[in-house]
């Protein structure tokens, strides 16, 4: 095997006409890939503070960004997402969109509200704050 290895080493690693910076770019983290974004709002902005006493501020968060072509376990995407990607890229049906960047997990929110009859209610609501995004 010595001869084979030495002949391999003699070949140039990068052809002279290849742009190195372009080559490395594909390894950079894509800029607008699907991820979670903060969105803080206060109920006084919505003029809801006359009936929502707490929390003062609410950060529901949202998901935005491109879904990579090869969606792997990083997004926890189901296999269906890959299938949808193939249908879209092979243009088997133009009405099938690419997978979307959507919330995958939520956390609950406690809300203190004044009811129309003047009583006060503390309630805990499910799925009010996005905590994780996925592509599907």
């Amino acid at each position, binding site marked *: 095997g010595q001869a084979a290895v030495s002949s391999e080493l003699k070949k140039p690693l990068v052809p002279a006409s290849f742009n190195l910076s372009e080559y490395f770019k594909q390894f950079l983290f894509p800029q607008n890939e699907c991820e979670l974004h903060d969105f803080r709002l206060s109920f006084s902005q*919505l*003029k*809801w503070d*006359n*009936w929502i*006493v*707490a*929390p003062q*501020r*609410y*950060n529901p968060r949202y998901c935005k960004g491109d879904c990579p072509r090869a969606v792997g376990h990083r997004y926890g995407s189901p296999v269906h997402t890959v299938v949808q990607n193939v249908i879209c890229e092979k243009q088997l049906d133009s009405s099938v969109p690419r997978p979307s960047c959507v919330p995958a997990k939520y*956390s*609950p*929110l*406690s*809300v*203190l*509200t*004044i*009811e*129309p*009859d*003047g*009583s*006060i*209610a*503390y*309630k*805990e*609501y*499910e799925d009010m*704050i996005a905590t994780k995004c996925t592509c599907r």
Partner: protein
Amino acid sequence: SQASRREAQTAASAELESEVEPWSLLQPLDGEDRAGLFPPLFKVLYDGQGGAPRLQPDSRDLRYMKRLYKAYATKEGIPKSNRSHVSNTIRLFTPYIQRKRVPADPVTGTAPSVDLLFNLDRVTAVEHLLKSVLLYTFNNSVSFPSAVKCGYSLVMNEPESSRKARPPAPRSFTFKPQFEFRKKYTWVEVDVTTLLQPLVASDKRSIHMSVNVTCVNDQLQGPSALDSPLKLPLLVPPSLLLYLNDTSAQAYHRWDSLHYKRRPSQAPGQERGLSARPMEEEAAKGVRSSRHRHRR
């Protein structure tokens, strides 16, 4: 063809929309969440107003609920995971009608008798009662000795109960106000779950009761205790606090996560927290655990 089928569908839905209020189409189909966040949220989406005008709550009650909120939720509004009970809805009702039939009797230390009417319309069918408490509020101008023993009689003035004419069951409970003196208000919770459970469970929308309270100095023993009753002019009529479990899909169901964390030694009933601890203990426990963590 596909196109004609789609046209037929849009025509049908357009016809349907013209008949009902558009925003009602967004309501949950089974109408479970009549008193939740959805109706006002949808209304804002539809007509942009901030909800219907509301009666202003009692400022003491609002102060109590704000304190409760801080004990049960983080600053971001996320329910704290270290709470012991599972009620995901707590409602505080201020009494409507207060008529004094029996004036206060300074000799026996009896506070003025009051008639209370609570309107429970906001409690929905999917909110099941776990615990009900009468909440007494004091301000620190009342000079209390370290412990006061109070007896009270609670009479339900519902037609059925009056027909049964059962004598009121005297109960006694002990105040511990000193741990609240630093704050402007002191609260005491009196558990009336067994009395109200059948009424709330039977969908009674209004509860009418009369309360007589007599307090004596707990530290004095024997007849001297009786002849030195306390003057309680500031005993304001109690509000009604209901710990409920909302079973609708929109409500947060904590017990799902509790199931995973259940310690084998605990009986299931126990963990449901039917005997919810007073709010102060919850908050203190939170402080204790963080201090412990800090020391380590």
